């Protein structure tokens, strides 16, 4: 009798511990490497004839992590409904003049990419960003509350988060329609909805977004995942953005951005 009691007690103590261990969420907190596009150049510094080369980590800026565990099948570009494809081409052809990001505009979600810093708290998770247009933040409730009813549309939307196993899922909606969801003229409507998935692979973090817009897209766009490394570089307030090159453009040349 005593033996059975002890055994039952042991199980009673053990099972919750196992369940808790299985339900424990990975901690995404910390600083993460820059995911915005910067010049693909290194610095060659010469001091008293001694040369040093300083490169920057740009591994997180484009979705080339399709083979990472947990990544969903993706496509490099969204699929637009036929009636909107001409507009996409026009925006692409005139990207250097029409892309809001070129002129200090906010990139919005999902174009801003993974956060530069995450603070994970019991009832909310906070995303911090550094961007040429400024340094936005997003507070993502994780206590089960619904989306805000009276929130104004914004560039970074209204977000709620939840855990699906080891994956942090952020549902963002209620956007303004003056951002692009990516380079090459990928415009969207105010019906945009973005689902971001973040998870750990070793010390790294993976970020993958799915874009839905029933007004302009023919199907949801699962974006290529990005593998983001931890960063030891502290965040710093971004200097003001003063665009003066637009008036100097003499042709429509542009190149890969984000």
């Amino acid at each position: 009798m005593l033996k059975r009691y002890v055994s039952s007690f042991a199980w009673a103590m053990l099972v919750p511990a196992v369940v808790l261990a299985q339900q424990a969420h990975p901690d995404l907190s910390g600083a993460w490497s820059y995911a915005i596009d910067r010049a693909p150049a290194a610095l060659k510094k010469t001091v008293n004839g001694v040369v040093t080369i300083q490169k920057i980590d740009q591994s997180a800026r484009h979705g080339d992590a399709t083979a990472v565990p947990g990544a969903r099948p993706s496509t490099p570009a969204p699929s637009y409904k036929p009636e909107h494809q001409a507009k996409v081409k026009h925006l692409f052809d005139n990207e250097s003049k029409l892309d809001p990001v070129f002129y200090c505009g906010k990139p919005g979600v999902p174009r801003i990419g993974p956060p530069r810093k995450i603070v994970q708290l019991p009832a909310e998770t906070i995303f911090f960003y550094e961007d040429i247009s400024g340094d936005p933040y997003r507070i993502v409730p994780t206590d089960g509350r619904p989306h805000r009813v009276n929130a104004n549309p914004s560039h970074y939307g209204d977000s709620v988060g939840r855990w699906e196993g080891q994956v942090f899922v952020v549902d963002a909606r209620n956007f303004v329609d003056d951002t692009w969801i990516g380079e090459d003229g990928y415009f969207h409507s105010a019906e945009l909805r973005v689902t971001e998935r973040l998870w750990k692979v070793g010390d790294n973090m993976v970020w993958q977004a799915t874009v839905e817009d029933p007004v302009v897209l023919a199907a949801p766009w699962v974006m290529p995942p990005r593998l983001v490394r931890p960063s030891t570089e502290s965040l710093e307030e971004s200097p003001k953005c003063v665009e003066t090159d637009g008036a100097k453009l003499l042709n429509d040349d542009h190149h890969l951005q984000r």
Partner: protein
Amino acid sequence: MRQTISAWAGAFLLVSTVTSVGAHHSPSAIFDMSTRISVTGTLTKIDWINPHIVIAMDAKGSGGSLERWTFESNPPSWYRSVGLARADFAKVIGQTVTVEGVRARDRSLFGYMQKITLPDGTSLELINSADSK
């Protein structure tokens, strides 16, 4: 102050692969990528702003007249990541520096800085990441 402008045939490949304009437009939309210039003069100002840092310098033109040059370069966050801050440039305001880069197609006194040599001989140069291995 001394200003020299020199064009190097064949410089196109080097300069175009540097692609220094970064998260913005293509450099060829503004700058003459086939010609690299070198300007020596007095550094007068450094603006630590996005999307490009901007430096101003006074140089002497070929006829002896004062030429006020402006060069933009990579964004502040790029410079921060390679360990350079505004103070690294500001400390030589009023002193003679040499800037190398590409000039605006409209032939204005505007360019993209790809290398700067400071008064103590220290040089800071943007190079193609692929060439830095």
